């Protein structure tokens, strides 16, 4: 199908483009910008006036809960939610059940996501067998099966010798290793160790639980030279450690989860289990440093850290609830809020959601240059909407952002040149265009 996206404000951070123009798509790729390629016959015109056209979002961490926890969500349910949120690529960590430590699981995920047909789902393979941190996983086989990298799956390795060997082995096959630094012993609590946890009597997780492991891992990277991506950093000091390592030329990148840019430990008031996350929400100084790190590029990507849950998982006293936030639905609008808060420019925010993660993954995508895969997101930045359970597309409705008033709604999502989502105008009962607010 040949599509023209007419009159939108094209923001393509990879090419420093921010201009009102037309975008021509043919055979699943960008065929022309501004003027059509020779002989282009339009099958479908999308009117994008007053809208922003950007590359489809790439989410570096989304738990889809399949296989193993289909009572929480499925690949199909979450791919549908992703499409409605302008997200075209989802990276799925290996802590599924069974664990992604053998090709058959990768194959299952591929088949399910192809059947859903609404988002690219990229699997991260396990670094160790069963993610137990004892024996290496068959990383070469996982790579052949299509894994885009290997990961600790949110279960940091305690045994430093096994970690060192896993990093060396991954480097052998030029695989990027995705790690989540959190000391399992120091990380035993449920809230940031600070004044709020002290007051509420919640067992704390000190910043050193993250920075200690991060410093150790960086020393191993220095010896081995392996490419490592650190996911979901939560502390100001972690941003410093990454910045210093990058300045020294170590091949390391990092990301931050959306909720760590908007919420702090103070939001735990009233023991709100929707704010139970790992790593925990930290202080406002940490939040500000994470925003600054994202602006400077030390943190190269912004992700949802999507963890959909069934309602029961959050219906218990704080410490008995499962950590995690359902984040796909609010990813774009909360990003736009960062731009409105002037935490960082709009083009930079979009870069951290598109080209930034694409580079971390080493994939061709995240940009809209001629010849690139036509994964695109079209959104109206002025649509006001209120986050309510009935507008969330994810099966998980566990969001601390419920009842927040946000701006910006996706109108179309294109995946490899196919329209996988198109917003119907009467869909949002609470929405309305506001004429005054601009991004």
């Amino acid at each position, binding site marked *: 199908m040949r599509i023209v996206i007419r009159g939108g404000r094209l923001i393509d951070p990879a090419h420093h483009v921010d201009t009102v123009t037309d975008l021509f798509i043919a055979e699943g790729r960008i065929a022309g910008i501004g003027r059509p390629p020779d002989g282009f016959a339009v099958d479908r015109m999308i009117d994008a006036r007053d809208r922003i056209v950007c590359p489809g979002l790439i989410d570096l961490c989304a738990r889809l809960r399949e296989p193993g926890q289909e009572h929480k969500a499925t690949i199909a349910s979450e791919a549908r939610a992703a499409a409605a949120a302008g997200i075209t690529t989802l990276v799925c960590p290996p802590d599924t059940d069974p664990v992604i430590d053998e090709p058959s699981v990768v194959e299952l995920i591929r088949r399910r996501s192809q059947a859903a047909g609404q988002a690219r789902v990229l699997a991260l393979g396990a670094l160790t067998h069963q993610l137990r941190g004892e024996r290496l996983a068959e990383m070469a086989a996982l790579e052949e099966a299509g894994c885009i990298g290997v990961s600790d799956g949110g279960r940091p390795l305690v045994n430093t010798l096994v970690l060192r060997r896993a990093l060396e082995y991954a480097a052998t096959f030029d695989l990027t290793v995705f790690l989540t630094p959190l000391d399992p012993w120091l990380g035993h609590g449920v809230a940031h160790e600070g*004044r709020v946890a002290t*007051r*509420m009597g919640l067992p*704390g997780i000190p910043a050193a639980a993250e920075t200690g492991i991060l410093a150790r891992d960086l020393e191993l990277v220095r010896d081995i030279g392996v490419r490592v991506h650190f996911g979901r950093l939560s502390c100001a000091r972690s941003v410093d450690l990454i910045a210093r390592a990058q300045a020294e030329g170590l091949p390391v990148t990092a990301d931050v989860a959306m909720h760590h840019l908007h919420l702090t430990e103070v939001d735990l008031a009233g*023991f709100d289990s929707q704010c139970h996350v790992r790593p925990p929400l930290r202080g406002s100084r940490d939040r500000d440093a994470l925003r600054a790190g994202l602006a400077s590029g030390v943190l190269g990507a912004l992700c949802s850290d999507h963890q959909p849950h069934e309602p029961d998982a959050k219906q218990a006293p704080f410490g008995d609830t499962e950590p995690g936030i359902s984040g796909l639905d609010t990813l774009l609008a909360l990003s736009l809020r960062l731009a409105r808060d002037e935490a960082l420019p709009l083009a930079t925010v979009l870069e951290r959601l598109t080209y930034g993660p694409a580079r971390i993954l080493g994939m061709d995508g995240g940009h809209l240059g001629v010849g690139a895969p036509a994964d695109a997101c079209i959104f109206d930045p002025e649509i006001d909407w209120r986050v309510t359970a009935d507008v969330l597309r994810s099966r998980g409705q566990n969001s601390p952002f419920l009842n927040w008033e946000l701006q910006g709604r996706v109108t179309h999502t294109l995946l490899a040149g196919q329209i996988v989502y198109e917003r119907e105008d009467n869909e949002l009962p609470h929405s309305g265009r506001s004429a005054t607010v601009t991004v």
Partner: protein
Amino acid sequence: MSTADIQLDRQGRLLHFLTVEGLSHRHLTEILDTAESLRGVAERRVKKLPTLHGKTVVNLFFEASTRTRTTFELAAKRLSADVLTLNIAQSSTVKGETLLDTLQNIEAMQCDMFVVRHQQSGAAEFIARRVKPHIAVLNAGDGRHAHPTQGMLDAFTIRRHKPDFRNLEVAIVGDILHSRVARSLIHALNILGAADIRVIAPRTLLPIDVENLGVRVFLDPREGLRGVDAVVMLRLQKERMEGALLPTEQEFFRRYGLTEERLALAKPDAIVMHPGPINRGVEIDSRVADGPRSVILEQVTNGIAVRMAIMSITLGNHARPAGENA
């Protein structure tokens, strides 16, 4: 919405008693004064008041307890309520029933008050947010967060011996980190205007930024105990040794245990308190625990009056139609 907000109605009256934090001097004084007037009931021939006649109080104990549970039971019975005690630690939650299921089942039995003890911080508030509006929830201890009736009975006991809070200096000694008793007492004393609240413990038993609660920190009891009016010793759990928080009970006693020599640093008329049950020779010497300055058993007696007071106040506020002032 914060915990302080949910336990009050729109007129600022207590509907639940979940935490001392955020309450006013007026709330606390009302509780203490009511407790004072109820203290005499136990000395009567008929130890009963009709206040809660026809009401049903359910003790929901998700964590083992003897003393607290018993005093809550007695308090409810002396107010003529029907009392049911459920030790859920051993029953339904073990069978996989969720807290919410348990709650709804008991609610269906038409109760008026839940007294809740649970190992998780925030559990009583979790329940208070979900019960039917006519039910009052009293927190009998949630994780490390709060044990507000204990905090109030401690404040009550102190007030009986040292009525002038403006000059009051109190030292709380021991495992502050895990102690809901310490947190509730600290809040109560601050609201009542105590002059100086000190916590004394090794660094491993102090929560981070504890000064923020409005206390002064002392690592050395020889400094911290100097000149205080009341010494509150906290119970030291045996698990603390396994968690590498302390080397041995013996070393803790040598450095922090309340002996007659250490107590001599306090004011000559200083009182010695302990929420119980006490570990003799671990946090407190028997001679001090059983000595003339000890008010530990008086605390137990006072606990009944304070709990009666809180029960009558909260259920009384529930009975009053909305909008009517006390």
